[in-house]
């Protein structure tokens, strides 16, 4: 693993954020399994090093756009458990007052412009956010997260073309987890994903998405350059989702084997790998790490409890927020 930071605090925060994501997802999955969560949701477990490696290279005012598999991005960009669980349960104190839910969770207070239930749907938004930075002379960078499946959407090529023509400070971060829904990436993606970006004159990198330090080191460099107007950039992060496509996708052997899942979980888990490194480098002791894990677990459980007991938005809210200036759209 690359040794990119010497700052203990940074390392520990990265570890912490990865564990927070995993813990959030374990609780969300549990909420689904115990029928306490409305609808379905898509787990980020296994991909933590991508969101954390990238978001830890960003500053507070930098922006991200997220996907249907968006809890990881949301946590990594700074969101709190309480408001997130409230949102997943449709409660008033959720980031979106319960109106968005898992697939639309946004946290504009930390620069997360939102998850998106349209595959590829946020590519324009991310590019537009970078456009704002350039137009208003800010040095903010925007990261656009999306899956390998989203590379099939034409919108990506349209906005990459403009981002390249206009040197926009945007980083396209393709989380290649090998599958889109129940289909292997090679069955839906011809040629090379990075070459597609390169054909538009965009510098593209493939990186091990299970190695948080590698992801972080590369992102730091690219963010720096993007701030100077050298963007856009493209990243293909090789990763894996541990759960099914969504929480309800339990029997999945018809499209991927248990052996494959086992291999990734046992041999390439981003949290285990980083933890081993932290201990071997003397950044933290096993005890310190266990304590951190336990604390996060407690936080998450408290947030879940809070959210379960929180109240739903009042029914009068149903036609609020359709427009900014009309309190009740149907009044």
């Amino acid at each position, binding site marked *: 693993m690359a040794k990119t930071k010497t700052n203990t605090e940074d390392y520990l925060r990265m570890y912490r954020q990865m564990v927070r994501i995993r813990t959030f997802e374990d609780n969300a999955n549990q909420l689904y399994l115990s029928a306490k969560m409305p609808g379905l949701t898509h787990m980020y477990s296994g991909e933590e090093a991508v969101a954390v490696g990238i978001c830890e290279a960003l500053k507070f005012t930098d922006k991200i756009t997220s996907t249907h598999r968006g809890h990881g991005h949301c946590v990594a960009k700074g969101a709190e458990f309480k408001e997130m669980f409230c949102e997943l349960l449709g409660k008033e104190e959720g980031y979106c007052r319960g109106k968005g839910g898992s*697939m639309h969770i946004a946290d504009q207070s930390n620069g997360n412009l939102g998850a998106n239930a349209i595959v590829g749907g946020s590519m324009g938004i991310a590019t537009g956010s970078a456009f704002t930075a350039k137009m208003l002379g800010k040095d903010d960078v925007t990261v656009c997260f999306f899956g390998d499946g989203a590379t099939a959407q034409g919108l990506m090529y349209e906005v990459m073309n403009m981002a390249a023509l206009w040197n926009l400070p945007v980083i396209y971060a393709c989380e290649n987890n090998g599958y889109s829904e129940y289909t292997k990436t090679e069955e*839906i993606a011809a040629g090379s994903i990075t070459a597609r970006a390169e054909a538009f004159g965009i510098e593209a990198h493939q990186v091990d998405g299970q190695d948080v330090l590698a992801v972080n080191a590369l992102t730091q460099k690219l963010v720096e350059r993007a701030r100077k107007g050298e963007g856009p950039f493209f990243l293909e992060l090789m990763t894996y989702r541990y759960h099914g496509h969504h929480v309800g996708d339990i029997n999945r052997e018809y499209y991927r084997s248990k052996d494959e899942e086992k291999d990734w979980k046992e041999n390439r888990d981003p949290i285990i790998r980083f933890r081993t490194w932290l201990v071997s480098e003397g950044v933290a002791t096993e005890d310190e790490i266990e304590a951190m894990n336990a604390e996060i677990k407690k936080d998450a459980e408290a947030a879940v409890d809070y959210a379960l007991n929180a109240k739903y938005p009042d029914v009068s809210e149903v036609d609020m927020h359709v427009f900014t200036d009309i309190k009740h759209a149907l009044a």
Partner: protein
Amino acid sequence: MREITLSQAVNEALAEEMRRDERVFIIGEDVAEAGTPFKVLSGLVEEFGTGRVVDTPIAEPGFMGIAVGAAMTGTRPVVDLMFGDFIYLIMDQLCNQAAKTHYMSGGKLNVPLVLRTNLGATRRSAAQHSQSLHALVAHIPGLKVAMPSSAYEAKGLMKTAIRDDNPVVIFEDKLMYQDKAPVPEEEYLIPFGKANVKREGSDITLIATSSMVQVAEKAAEILAQDGIEAEVIDPRTIVPLDEETLLKSVRKTSRAIVIDEGHQSYGITGEIAARLNEKAFYHLDAPVLRMGAMDVPVPFSPALEDVTVPTPDGVAENARRLMSGEMIHAA
């Protein structure tokens, strides 16, 4: 008669038509081995192979365009659009190309294509996976639009659609896929443009589409307890629309409510109500009422989502108001 689910009914219709005509094929995301997320197509790829049950990348405009070109040149595609909300992505191919080709070519090119998609909220799927967008396509000349209200309709309308030489859009209610209804073993087709009188009554006409037919039937039961005899009519196709049957009923009952799960404003209820008002004006004892979904994006929170769509009680209440003459004085 045997009962099968709406999902099985669609599956049977497709299988029968694919056996009957080898030019028929299915194209869409995860339609083959996965049989779609709703499992509607399970088993078809085993019988017909991947050459006729074609998995695509996540590229709705692309595979819709491919279907248009395929249809123009001698095949009969059935396009599977996973959620009705994605229809926005294919509007150009559907409305600028498929819908207009026959006309623009002076009758020389045909586009015998079926677009299968769905509608319906209250599934906790939030704003981008819950829309009922049939009004958009009903407005575009050159498209036929079918809205099955049960397994029986789903099968018969699908078979008719596949044999039609024009582009046809079928909206299935995604909450109804597991609902059973009697469906004959023998082959049958349901003609387009023939409404179905689901229940006879003399006091008021309830015109309802798709998911709302059950709502109207339940409302009719409630009303029957008050001694109000409601006639329930399912137009089955909104293009072509069986005006005659609707008018006949309204001329008899003198009162009507049009119920639909699309947003109310500028949706299909306005059109149907306007036609009834215009053509049965003399017979009406009260204005034709409309009940669509609220004019709000579909909220995630169950506390809010459930109030956005018409309910049996709501329909019954409006029917009573119409019967009492209340609406006339209000107006």
